[in-house]
């Protein structure tokens, strides 16, 4: 079947849309026949792919894990409070069990002794699952760059890094919005936009054409 798309409300006067809306309110079964019925349905159905529909739903319904490691956790608490109000985006349901959560926010420094525990909690979460590394310690060990800590990337996949020491709640909310864009198959271009490099790929010297380049691709849920 050939699908012909038209803008909502047709090409004509916007007032026509209002007229059709009022007509639709009083419409009864059998009022429209044949060509008119096809046109009516075509204007009211939105087609998409299953992947995109699922991704859209997932991106708007994160269940973060109730989990705090250090001082960043205090900032993490604020994103559900009234100023940031994560409930606006549908992510307010912090779950107390990793079985019910699909987003882990690593809020603080990860000590070597804590790393196996965190890895185990991450493994207990059900797919699909994502992780945000919050703060300098968790990403690059920050001011505690010594014998005691280990960066999160060394023992688990991390989707979004939020820099800061600690990041403000706005920064974490920004990070979660970036994660939503990633989950909804619409990854933010970031520096590619600034440097007019959209469509280019990062290549290491001597690895031209290697398939294992560490570049995010649409559909990836981890790494990048």
């Amino acid at each position, binding site marked *: 079947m050939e699908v012909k798309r038209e803008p909502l409300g047709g090409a004509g006067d916007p007032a026509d849309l209002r007229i059709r809306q009022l007509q639709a309110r009083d419409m009864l079964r059998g009022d429209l026949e044949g060509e008119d019925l096809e046109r009516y349905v075509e204007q009211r159905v939105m087609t998409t792919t299953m992947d995109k529909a699922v991704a859209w739903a997932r991106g708007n319904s994160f269940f973060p894990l109730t989990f705090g490691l250090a001082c960043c956790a205090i900032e993490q608490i604020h994103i559900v409070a009234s100023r940031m109000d994560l409930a606006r985006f549908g992510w307010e349901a912090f779950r107390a069990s990793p079985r019910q959560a699909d987003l882990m926010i690593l809020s603080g420094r990860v000590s*070597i*002794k804590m790393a196996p525990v965190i890895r185990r909690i991450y493994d207990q979460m059900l797919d699909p699952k994502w992780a945000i590394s919050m703060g300098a310690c968790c990403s*690059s*060990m920050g001011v505690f*760059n*010594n*014998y*005691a*800590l280990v*960066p999160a990337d060394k023992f688990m996949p991390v989707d979004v890094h939020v820099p800061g020491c600690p990041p403000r709640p706005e920064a974490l909310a920004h990070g979660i919005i970036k994660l939503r864009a990633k989950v909804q198959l619409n990854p933010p271009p970031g520096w590619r936009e600034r440097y007019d490099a959209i469509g280019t790929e990062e290549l290491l010297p001597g690895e031209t054409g290697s398939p294992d380049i560490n570049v995010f691709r649409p559909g990836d849920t981890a790494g990048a």
Partner: protein
Amino acid sequence: MPDATELELTAQELRDRDGESVIETEFHRGRAVLVINPPKIKSVLAHLEGKGYTFLASLHGVDYYPDEPRLGVLYELLDMKRVDRISVKARVPTDAPHIDSVVEQFPGAEFPEREVYDMFGVVFDGHPDMRRILMPEDYEGYPQRRDFPVGGEPVLFTFNEETTYGKNV
């Protein structure tokens, strides 16, 4: 704090009981320190406890690298009635870092002694549960010693961005 005279009198009392117990005394900025012979630690602390210093406020380790003997174990004692403090310092070498545990006398010393063992490798003989307290049990080395590498991740600055990972590897 006992003044310098009282510190010397205390040291002399200990020397009278056991001539090898006190090596020297230090009095610096109002802080009285008895440097003692490590094998005598239990008898010294028992005598000081009898004098009124009944509370072990702190027990911690120090690395005096490059001085020998390198490691130091400090016992901070407090007399609650006179509000008077005295420090006892025992220096042990790194090749045989052994000292008697004082857990029987001061039960609160159990965790601090484990911490000193964890961070400096001083073994407290007679301790009921001598194992690491902060680091993982399979960790190698004693991270607070001065000759322990700082470790951690290489951080990219402008001076090393060409030589660290990512470029010219």
